[in-house]
């Protein structure tokens, strides 16, 4: 299946889930073979099924499989893979991993290990921003002394100068892990310890620092692509303000309500950071946008983002394909450069919602389990990136994102209409997902007028109330089905065990005899 002009013959994807599937698809479109790696929890996962070769790398625990640099490099060498795409999460932002690939003579699809070190460490990035005059969120530039109780007084002093409420953040962090919000001085020490403990467990690095909490603010980020010749292009920005626990739920491109001048200014800040760091391949600069119209640099993610798809839809660029070409040494393509020139004047709109195995009525608590019914929307302007099929297990060991639903339309209002329509078509059983929240977003007046902020979920979502209304409908529907006077379909009692019990509610004669008969008839074992 190899194509002569493909950038690589064979590529290893050091990831799982929807992103591994998305990258494998790009490989196949470019005529490259895809090598999957998997843990025992994923032996039958979609990325393993789709890949041309699959290598087992360990037991389910990420630390014993997807986070094992040696095992992944060994898998790449043993399969003759010329490149490794890390996806996002896991090893994607570990400089040591990029370096191990470089040392093994394998191309790492992403920024160089040096750039990952310079930008991936948030404290480094904050110092870099200060050097090139990009304003960072006010806070500290050095790790907080978590292990030195005698220095608590000095950190308290610093905290007072930053102001409360403030955030304790992990230097190696991402996805909100290791992050703690502190509203009172007396809680600071405990937050530093627990944040550091979580950071250590999640990233193997317990360094934490302090940052002012800017609220209300919007989270806006810029997608960068860069080639080996030092050229950096901004493909446009995304608004990712709707978050829970500092993890994104809804993302859109472009960020609504910005002027062309604001976009040019913002893209310029990101390009300045990327250039100063010697960025190659793909990265994203994250900013907070406050009510006074100021942008505050947050961090750089030196990898493909979960939400890269909305930029692909609006910019008309396949970012993963570009990543492979750039990794092979190609200059930025004319298409990318043209897309960069259009980025401040976008002509369409895309929205993504993250369908995750979480209960939005129970503080978005994880709901691992086995997926039952699985119907995803289709039709004009719809893109679904997923690794899930009906019957698949959502393991508790990994991230709970099970699908990204993206909609694309000529403008934001049409995109929201399309999102509402798409969500009406989605049916997911077996595990509770974030679908009820997304349905509420698609119907929200505040969302439609672009009233976005990182506090949006707390302000606009009352999961318990929404759930209560849905519970009533569920009970009523099940009750109506049970009391409906339907003749028993012919064959019930024999066919029931074949089709798993008729999905159509059948007669309720059994209730009259104490509620047993029918059940016993249909389920003889």
């Amino acid at each position, binding site marked *: 299946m190899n194509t002569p002009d493909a950038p690589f013959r064979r590529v290893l994807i050091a990831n799982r889930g929807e992103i591994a599937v998305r990258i494998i698809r790009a490989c196949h479109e470019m005529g490259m073979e895809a090598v999957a790696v998997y843990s025992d929890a994923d032996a039958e996962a979609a990325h393993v099924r789709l890949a041309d070769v699959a290598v087992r790398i360990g037991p389910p625990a990420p630390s014993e499989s997807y986070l094992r640099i040696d095992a992944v490099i060994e898998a790449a060498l043993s399969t003759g893979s010329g490149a490794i795409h890390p996806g996002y999460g896991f090893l994607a932002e570990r400089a040591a991993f990029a370096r191990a690939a470089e040392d093994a003579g394998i191309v790492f699809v992403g920024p160089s290990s040096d750039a990952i070190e310079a930008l991936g460490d948030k404290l480094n990035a904050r110092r870099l921003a200060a050097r090139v005059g990009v304003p960072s969120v006010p806070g500290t530039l050095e790790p907080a002394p978590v292990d030195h109780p005698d220095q608590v007084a000095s950190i308290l002093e610093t905290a007072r100068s930053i102001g409360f409420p403030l955030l304790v953040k992990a230097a190696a962090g991402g996805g909100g892990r290791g992050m703690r919000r502190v509203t009172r001085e007396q809680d600071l020490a405990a937050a530093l310890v627990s944040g550091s403990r979580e950071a250590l467990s999640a990233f193997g690095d317990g360094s934490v620092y302090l940052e002012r909490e800017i609220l209300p603010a919007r989270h806006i980020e810029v997608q960068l692509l860069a080639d080996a010749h030092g050229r950096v292009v901004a493909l446009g920005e995304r608004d990712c303000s709707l978050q829970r626990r500092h993890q994104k739920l809804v993302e859109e491109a472009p960020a609504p309500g910005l002027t062309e001048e604001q976009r040019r200014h913002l893209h310029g800040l990101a390009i300045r950071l990327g250039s100063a760091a010697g960025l190659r391949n793909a990265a994203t600069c994250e900013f907070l946008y406050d009510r006074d119209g100021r942008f505050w640099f947050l961090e750089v993610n030196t990898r493909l983002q979960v939400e890269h798809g909305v930029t692909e839809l609006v910019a008309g660029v396949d970012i993963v394909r570009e990543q492979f070409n750039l990794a092979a040494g190609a200059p930025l393509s004319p298409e990318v450069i043209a897309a960069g020139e259009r980025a401040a004047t976008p002509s369409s709109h895309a929205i993504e919602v993250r369908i995750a195995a979480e209960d939005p009525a129970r503080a978005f608590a994880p709901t691992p389990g086995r997926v039952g019914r699985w119907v995803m929307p289709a039709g004009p302007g719809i893109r679904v990136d997923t690794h899930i099929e009906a019957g698949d297990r959502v393991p508790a060991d990994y991230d709970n994102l099970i699908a990204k639903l993206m909609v694309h339309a000529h403008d934001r209002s049409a995109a929201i209409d399309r999102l509402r329509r798409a969500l009406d078509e989605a049916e997911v059983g077996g595990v509770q997902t974030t679908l009820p929240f997304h349905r509420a977003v698609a119907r929200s007046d505040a969302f439609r007028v672009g009233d976005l902020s990182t506090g949006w979920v707390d302000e606009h979502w009352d999961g318990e109330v929404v759930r209560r209304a849905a519970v009533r409908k569920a009970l009523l529907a099940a009750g109506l089905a049970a009391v409906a006077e339907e003749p028993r379909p012919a064959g019930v009692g024999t066919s029931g065990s074949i089709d798993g019990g008729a999905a*159509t509610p059948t007669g309720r004669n059994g209730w009259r005899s104490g509620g047993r008969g029918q059940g016993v008839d249909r389920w003889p074992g």
Partner: protein
Amino acid sequence: MAGLTPSSATGTTAESNGNGGVDPRAVRVRLETATHLNPEPSMRVTPAPEPLRMTNPTVGTGPLGGVAMAPANAEPPAVLAQRQVLVDDVAVDAGLRSLGGGRYLLVEGGDQVRVVLEAETAEPGGVARREVLVEGFRFVVEVESERVAALRERATSGRASSAHTGPLRVKAIIPGKVVAVSVKPGDAVTAGQQLLVVEAMKMQNELRAPRDGTIDRVGVTVGVNIEIGDLLVVIS
């Protein structure tokens, strides 16, 4: 699609069923309780004396084009109409119309909403259980004869009050790994106090005491992997 709210009930109160007499057709519907910390409301649904049955439905123009990977249901679309049912003794103009494949249109008053009723599984003791999808939620709903439910409640009502003061067994509601245990036997705890921390899906989830009491037993230690339903802590 507007929400179906209790206000769309017609509001007429049903005549009494007599002294403890329960319509033999009535059912009790509730959420499967095992997955919820808090007791959930239940609903009593009784068909009106003369149910109206539609036999020739116009199947709604539901969304097409969804890629259904669930096994197709061979059952022909059935029509279930139940105009005027009693919901907890209040007459409600509600009906259910099959759209095929386990999908139904729930109509109540002027509102309608699409629901999915998955195949029913029967449990011993006359309880049937089925998954219901509505507005993005998925619930496991238990249905049983109202007569049986009422009998059982009468039989256990004497014991119900003592249950509140007896030992409370706190069970795992998510699978994961215990990363911190904050209490030991003999500790006094107040409602809301952290008992332990469970790491699941890369997140640390705090488990808090549902009420005041004294720790009687701690069933787990740091590092242990737990499954849903595992006994974690007993509070007396």
